[in-house]
């Protein structure tokens, strides 16, 4: 077979062209179709923000207090504890002494975090 001596990366150029044409041709066709058959009829409501049929009220740029993140972290203590305490309680009688001690260390570690936050005064909303 006798192939012409082409640049080894020519196929990339061809693929690039195809990748450009693939979305652009339908978009151009849709644009042409819109000009011919679907006259645009914009309006103040049609162009406004969609908000489930209710008009948007107030300033959308609302700020949340950054202090909230501390409560988010403290919530995680109880969250993680609850997740692990349930299986712990279910299989409590069948556990070895080592496992119980390991679990107690884990729970106390979390409780220590709460105590630390408490001593720091994080539970007072300032």
């Amino acid at each position, binding site marked *: 077979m006798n192939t012409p001596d082409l640049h080894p990366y020519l196929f990339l150029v061809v693929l690039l062209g195809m990748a450009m044409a693939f979305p652009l041709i339908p978009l151009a066709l849709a644009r042409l179709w819109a000009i011919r*058959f*679907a006259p645009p*009829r914009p*309006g*103040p*409501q*049609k162009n406004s923000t*969609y908000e489930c*049929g*209710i008009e948007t009220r107030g300033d959308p740029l609302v700020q949340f207090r950054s202090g909230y993140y501390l409560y988010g972290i403290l919530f995680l203590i109880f969250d993680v504890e609850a997740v692990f305490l349930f299986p712990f309680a279910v299989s409590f009688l069948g556990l070895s002494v080592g496992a119980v001690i390991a679990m107690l260390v884990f729970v106390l570690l979390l409780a220590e975090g709460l105590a630390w936050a408490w001593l720091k005064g994080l539970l007072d909303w300032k």
Partner: protein
Amino acid sequence: MIDEGLQNELARQGVFVTSLQELSNWGRSNSVWPMTFGLACCAIEMIATSMARYDIARFGSEVFRPSPRQSDLMIVAGTVTKKMVPQVIRLYNQMPEPKYVISMGACAISGGPFKEGYNVLKGVDRFLPVDIHIPGCPPRPEALLHGLITLQKKMAGEQLTGPGCARSFDATAPSEFPVPVLGAHDLIPPRNDAVWHPPLPKRNE
């Protein structure tokens, strides 16, 4: 425009001839995307229609869009209270053309069993150009499917350009319908006279 007899003759020979308009109508009438918009118990029937047993996907309308920006069809499924009317019309205004309205159930058609109620709109066609009315209280899913098929037939016969074209393709038609305000006693205005043309009552003298 090709002669219909010639078109049939060609179709018998295996040559399919169509116009751009028919092609477009065929395409859009078979992919009507309704808006996820239920107002009352008719919405339960609408939901059942979209599920596996009745399977509205057979008719290309399973894509219920949660935004008016992406939907073609508003199924007014249920009782339209006067408090809800401004929101309904605002949502309709926000839908892109071409758009259609199905008035599903007795309530959406006329107020239904709540017609005498002080807070119920007596038919959504007082404010919106309704294409298909589906009677029933509530209509069964088959009735909604039939309504959809009727709408598809209507869409298939629509003209895209020139005089006599459908409202959605008319550049001179208004793009939005006025949204009424909920007043102390009734909606202000109580109806849109540009849309609502009730037949005059016939009285036997």
